[in-house]
């Protein structure tokens, strides 16, 4: 029996920017959906395809070289754009819009995270699309929802982080929001939630035969993640405690220094048994703080005792010793160590993929795994407009003449129109737009 991926045959248009709705589409693609991501050579709202006209030797490119087509070589985009086809359409151009409408007419799902104002302006609201496809499932991601004073405010990871209260609750308890790294978790959270939303709305579509309209506010998704602190204020009327790396439920829990330059280990003891085992490994006396309550109360002193001992351990050796005694512990690993660790390179998470612009590299693959329907990186990240010809002529049957006209008129292309001639040193004028990937 040939095993189909669960979403094989499901057709998805990914009309989004940056991460939230596009990453939802990546997860659908991982599960077998046919996803076409639509970009535009005249605008890039977020700079996921990298800075305009980068200097030589910049982090983020393979071997730090921007190369001939830097926009196809930037890590922020390529990290999670597997298993999709990528086309470019300037939807203000009538012919490009006609192409988009043809795709809309035969798709199951349309995903966007443009502001409500932008979707109205572009004629891409739910009502607009329902007229083209009466069975469409429309997913609209916004920062703050489709109505209200903030409906059209551009929301970024940072503003959502601040507005929801997340920013004030993370990082060190004793410092201001300055000190922690930025957190853009709302995008990933919104993406995962949108996948669920699509599946729920598809159930409804299949039952009723009617088009479905999903509205998802990233702020409201992130507030679910903040339910514990929210409920704390609901029940006590007080602002929640900022725990940093500690836990409200047990003590100690923290990040402690080990031998070597900037080496750290995270350790927790969730109950008396784990505390006793932790003390045994580190050579501490467990009797001094016998109860969870006393450990929570004297967390600072306990941290000092632990720091005095961990400093003479190698991080990896200590982790193994603690795990041997069933104490929760994990080295604070850097990315490089993830790429070297058999836990992640065994093929169930990091996978190799080859693209002409980036060569063979390791990328994160599907975030969950299936026993019966293996989910793999089937196709790598795509270059800007890489599948224009395949989709427009191959799938939709447009003629070569019409395709050439689209290029001539700037409706489609494979490089950004607002970039200076690139590469800077050579004469790029002779390079035809069609040449690179078609």
């Amino acid at each position, binding site marked *: 029996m040939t095993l189909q991926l669960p979403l094989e045959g499901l057709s998805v248009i990914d009309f989004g920017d940056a991460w939230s709705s*596009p990453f939802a589409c990546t997860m659908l693609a991982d599960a077998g959906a046919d996803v076409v991501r639509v970009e535009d050579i005249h605008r890039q709202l977020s700079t996921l395809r990298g*800075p305009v006209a980068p200097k030589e030797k910049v982090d983020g490119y393979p071997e730090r070289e921007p190369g001939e087509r830097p926009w196809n070589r930037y890590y922020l985009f390529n990290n999670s754009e597997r298993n999709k086809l990528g086309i470019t359409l300037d939807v203000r151009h009538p012919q490009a819009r006609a192409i988009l409408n043809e795709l809309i007419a035969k798709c199951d799902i349309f995903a966007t995270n443009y502001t409500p104002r932008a979707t109205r302006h572009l004629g891409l609201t739910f009502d607009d699309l329902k007229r083209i496809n009466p069975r469409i499932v429309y997913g609209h991601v916004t920062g703050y929802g489709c109505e209200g004073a903030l409906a059209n405010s551009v929301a970024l990871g940072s503003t959502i982080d601040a507005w929801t209260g997340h920013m004030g609750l993370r990082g060190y308890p004793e410092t*201001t929001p300055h000190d922690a790294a930025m957190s853009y978790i709302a995008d990933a959270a919104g993406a995962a939630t949108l996948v669920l939303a699509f599946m729920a709305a598809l159930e409804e579509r299949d039952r009723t035969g009617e088009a479905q309209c999903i509205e998802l506010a990233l702020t409201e998704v992130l507030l679910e993640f903040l339910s514990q602190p929210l409920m704390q204020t609901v029940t006590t009327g007080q602002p929640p405690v900022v725990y940093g790396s500690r836990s409200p439920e047990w003590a100690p829990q923290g990040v402690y220094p080990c031998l070597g330059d900037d080496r750290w280990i995270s350790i927790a003891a969730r109950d008396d048994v784990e505390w006793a085992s932790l003390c045994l490994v580190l050579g501490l006396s467990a009797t001094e703080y016998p109860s969870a309550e006393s450990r929570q109360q004297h967390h600072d002193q306990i941290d000092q005792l632990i720091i005095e001992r961990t400093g003479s351990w190698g991080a990896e050796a200590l982790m193994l010793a603690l795990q041997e005694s069933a104490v929760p512990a994990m080295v604070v690993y850097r990315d490089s160590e993830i790429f070297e660790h058999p836990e992640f390179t065994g093929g169930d998470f990091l996978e190799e993929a080859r693209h002409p612009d980036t060569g063979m590299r390791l990328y994160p693959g599907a975030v969950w795994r299936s026993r019966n329907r293996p989910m793999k990186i089937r196709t790598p990240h795509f270059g800007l407009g890489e599948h224009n010809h395949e989709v427009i002529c191959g799938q939709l049957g447009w003629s070569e003449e019409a395709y050439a006209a689209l290029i001539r008129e700037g409706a489609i292309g494979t490089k950004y129109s607002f970039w200076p001639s690139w590469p800077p040193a050579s004469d790029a004028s002779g390079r035809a737009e069609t040449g690179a990937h078609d």
Partner: protein
Amino acid sequence: MADSSAPARSGPLARHRILDLTQSIAGPYATKLLADYGADVIKVERPPYGDQAREWQPFCSGGGSRHSAFFSFLNANKSSVALDLRHPSGREALLRLARHCDAVVENFKPGVMERLGLSYRDLRGVRDDVVLTSISNFGQKGAFRDFEATELNIFALGGRMAASGTRPRPPVRLLGGSSLFMAGTVAAGATLIALRGRDRDGLGDHLDVSIANVILGEPDRGLCLYSYSGINMERLDGPRPYQAFPAADGFVVINVNRGIERIAEMIGRPELASDPRFSSNVARQEHADSLEPLIIEWTVARTKAEVVAESHKFRVIAAPVATIPEVLANPGLRARDYFQSIPGARCPCQETQPGSPFRIHTVPNLGWSLRRPAPAVGSDTCPVLADVGGFSPTEIEQLLRCGAAFEPDPTVGAEASA
């Protein structure tokens, strides 16, 4: 026990029945999402204390008993069946329920389901097309499979934590628990995707949701930076520039990557717009010491609300760094009815809960509803065994007597211990 006047179960997922063997956060959040959009979720708990999150703060003391408000959020809309799965009759009862469920979700340590005789193979024995969703810290195989870990330990993997914070302080995590919510959300979506596959060809599945893989795969982590450029993100020696700007009454976030000319105008320094030191992201990072103080000078003289109002006027992307009490009072969220109460709420934690994470405008009630409060341990044992499993009153009596099943003493006010 569910109030008989409670609203009937409805929603886009109403045709699915889920057997929920999870506890703590990731699993219960996954099944909460399914339940809130209409699925029939049967939470199986170990008698007599049940889910360990019942002991997790914050606590609510309304309605006559002290109970976890966090648990009350995570487990609304579910019924609870208390079964001792190590008891042969308890295991048998579970398999009999599983026969009538579309999916089973569990977050035991890897290997526990097998030891209980409830492996994917065992479940398939009673329901051939079952979808089993297993959520675990590091997945069902691999070198870390059997490691003990809290969320902090999982978060320590990969450069995110190593790069969070400032030297010489230790690396610090972001908000506790978010990895678990993230994995729970992925698990809920993955379960529905597998059910869609089952609907087509009749083949069920065993899904492996590793919390570590879920967070390492987040696009904002940009994990492939290392495979491209060979570098690790590191902590800085001081605060990161442009993270948050102090206002008179707290902090605000202003995005300096987009619209520097509008920011320049807003803070009354239009000349900055044409200053080459600030003309690009890279340049602004390089010259943060010059630009940041000029913005701060303007923000500290204003309240958060004033800064945000001015930003809207000048179309600058900005937001206040809100406190949780401010979030609960936020007029925008109130206008959208984001916070919701459980029908017949009897305590503060049932009166105010975070609402729906998405709305389906084409479905009654936007597809989402709170129908009943979180159950007491085993509050639905007998009706679920009878209605779902088809157990006779005699069989149920036997299960209760031998300790394989448990129901709370109805005379001790179990209703209040939501």
